[in-house]
């Protein structure tokens, strides 16, 4: 239905409320992420396959590495490039692979580490750079996929080597300053690191520490940052999510990180599996809980720190979360079955909007004719009015730049090409 004809209050809802679909992925889903515009959903599976679902038809359209080079152990982390053309995947088989969706049959580039990969994130998608954290390693790795054999840089800070901060478990990239990464370690250290690239030599990097503090006495499991880079949330194994306000000056000389809220499950004292921010300045935070007794996602307002919504409907413990802001869907995978649950906004059709003169009423009421309602107007006058109404120019061709939620409509996902060979193969097997 046309957006203009819909109830503005339901269209503008800021978070999804209802479970609308369940993708029964036969391969157990371990992690998931929507493409930037929400047209596709990539699922990393426990057998190492990465399946991409089309969100219009809710059917799988491609499996990465069908010809060669698929992962052989479960996929731990995956990430789309902002233009939707590339995907990086990190797996328990020690590999980080870069996939070009124009040729999804085999990995575009790949690199091997000496341990299982925790997570991988894009650092600079245009130059095919990403960062990855590896099990039992004290440093974050930067991978430069721009070369035929990708170059791995260890982001090693001299002063960190003396102070034993534990293994790096997670990292994320600051969207405002794409050369600043935020890391969390097994001993509870939160660090902001800066990557400097010397323009003269493309492969020489120096790394410096901007900020480092011990925030907790246990593992930092996950760090997320809001789209505008002002908010940070840290999920640690002490059953608490800590939310911080981050302020950074332009020249990165001053960095302040202030604790805003802590989120805890006061009753069951459960651990949190995964956390995710809403778009823009991150007005909402959504989290999944550990343990088989809970099957919901919790949604807090970050300003006040109050729980505003519990997303129900799943039948099992939920793991990874991803929230797409173009189609306003939250997807989460179940722990037992590996199915993917998708919550979205259901907008009740308001058909009376098609004829603005009509009004929907609950009961019959006797119609009261208005004083001038059926008065005869001079024909000439009426004609004149009609002409005037027609003269207002209506622009039908220009596309709107932003949708109601401020998403950029000019941005478009890469369209995954149709795999005709596969259709041929399917026919041959019949």
């Amino acid at each position, binding site marked *: 239905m046309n957006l203009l004809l819909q109830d503005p209050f339901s269209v503008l809802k800021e978070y999804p409320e209802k479970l609308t679909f369940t993708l029964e992925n036969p391969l157990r889903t371990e992690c998931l992420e929507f493409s930037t515009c929400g047209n596709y959903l990539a699922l990393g599976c426990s057998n190492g396959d990465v399946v991409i679902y089309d969100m219009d038809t809710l059917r799988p359209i491609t499996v990465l590495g069908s*010809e*060669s*080079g*698929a992962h*052989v*152990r479960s996929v731990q982390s995956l990430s789309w490039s902002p233009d939707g053309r590339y995907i990086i995947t990190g797996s*328990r*088989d*020690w590999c980080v692979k870069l996939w070009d969706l124009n040729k999804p049959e085999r990995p575009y580039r790949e690199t091997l580490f*000496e*341990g*299982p990969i925790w997570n991988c994130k894009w650092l600079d998608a245009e130059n095919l750079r990403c960062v990855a954290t590896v*099990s*039992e390693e004290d440093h974050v790795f930067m991978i430069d996929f721009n070369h035929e054999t990708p170059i791995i840089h260890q982001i090693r800070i001299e002063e960190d080597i003396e102070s034993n901060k534990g293994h790096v478990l997670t990292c994320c990239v600051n969207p405002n300053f794409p050369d600043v990464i935020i890391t969390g370690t097994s001993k509870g250290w939160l660090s902001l690191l800066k990557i400097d690239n010397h323009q003269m030599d493309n492969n020489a990097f120096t790394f410096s520490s901007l900020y480092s503090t011990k925030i907790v006495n246990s593992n930092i499991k996950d760090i997320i940052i809001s789209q505008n880079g002002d908010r940070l949330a840290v999920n640690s194994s002490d059953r608490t999510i800590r939310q911080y306000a981050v302020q950074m000056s332009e020249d990165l000389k001053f960095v302040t990180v202030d604790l805003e809220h802590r989120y805890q499950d006061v009753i069951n004292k459960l651990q949190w599996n995964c956390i995710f921010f809403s778009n823009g300045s991150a007005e909402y935070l959504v989290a999944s809980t550990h343990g088989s007794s809970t099957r919901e996602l919790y949604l807090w307002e970050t300003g006040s720190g109050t729980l505003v919504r519990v997303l129900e409907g799943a039948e099992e413990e939920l793991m990874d979360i991803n929230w797409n802001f173009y189609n306003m869907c939250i997807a989460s995978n179940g722990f037992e079955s590996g199915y993917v649950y998708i919550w979205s906004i259901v907008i009740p059709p308001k058909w009376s909007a098609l004829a603005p003169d009509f009004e929907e009423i609950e009961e019959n009421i006797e119609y009261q004719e208005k004083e001038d309602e059926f008065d005869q107007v001079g024909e000439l006058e009426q004609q004149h009015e009609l002409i005037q109404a027609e003269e207002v120019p209506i622009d039908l061709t220009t596309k709107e730049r932003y949708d109601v939620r401020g998403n950029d409509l000019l941005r478009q996902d890469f369209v995954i090409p149709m795999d005709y*060979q596969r259709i*041929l*193969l399917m026919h*041959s097997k019949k």
Partner: protein
Amino acid sequence: MQARLSSLPVWCPPYSKTKKDPITGEDVYCICKKQDTGELMVGCDGCDDWFHFSCMRIPIKYQKLVASFYCPYCQAGITGMDKSEAEEKTVEDETGDAIKVRKTLWKKKCRLEDCYEPCTERSKYCSRQHGKEFLQEVLSKLDISGLNVGESVDKEAFVKTLIQQNDRDDFQSFIRAGQSEFIDKDVPKSLDNQLYESLIANDRKVNELINQQSIIETGTLPKAKERVELLEKYIDWISQVNIKFNEDQNSSGTTDENSSSKIDKGGKKSKKKKGLKTKPKKRICGYISNFTELPSSVDKFVEEYELHKDDGLTTLQSVCIKTRCIKHSEWSSMLLDRYLQEVELAERHQERIQLLLQTRKRQLHIQYYEKVTKKQS
């Protein structure tokens, strides 16, 4: 059974049991309940009664095409049901659904339009004569004016040349012309050498696929297989080292039982035997980044290990010697899986290329024949 039966058609009066005329006492037949006047009738296979062609609304000219006939009452299940079910079932099994509903079956009619004779066996015509007539009719309708043949060319001769374009000038290859195997065969080059060169020999897609095929056959597949072998050799070496460790530790005679390899092909730890009072078995991780060449011999390695045991080293000859290594856990099985997957996928890819090659060749052959025919005519 009842549900499957159709009801009586509109033109058919309800069933009556009358078999004899009440006045004259003569036998009456059909749905019209009249005496036999010599009009053509057909016997029902269900109830053994006789029915007029006209009453059954079957044109008389179809008389030779009836294979088995069931009257409307039998079709509706009113009569004929007293026949043993067993008999009916055997019929069902042979011919399937058609009989289950007791319908009149027909023989195939001759292809010639005005002929209502049934076809002879393994033929589309009632006789050779009609076959010839039919094809002549087809030939007369054939329009070859659009093929640039010129008015002078006889149609019959034209069709003959088409048939004779097969590599062997025999009837069997003509029969095969429409079948798919025919198009998969190599086309005769001699028909048009130039066209063959330009169309088939230099097709980019085919060459690309053949290229890919050879890469897999000579490169990917043997390499992957070799790696699997090397890795298996290394895993074997490591398990021997581990056996050695245990021998050294438990110098008593119990070692034999424990000496089964600790890293088997699947990489699963063989379970400790319960109840034996041996020390917990020692097993090094054994991870090495390059396994193509084995480190020094087992004995030497163990010796060296004993020497450096207390140095706090984590690697020896670039082999990870941690006894409890979480980081590299299950590395061997994972690597083996990866290489095996490579082999499997390469093999599968080979099949795929074969199929694509076949499809492409088929397309080209069809094009080739089409173009040749056009030129020749």
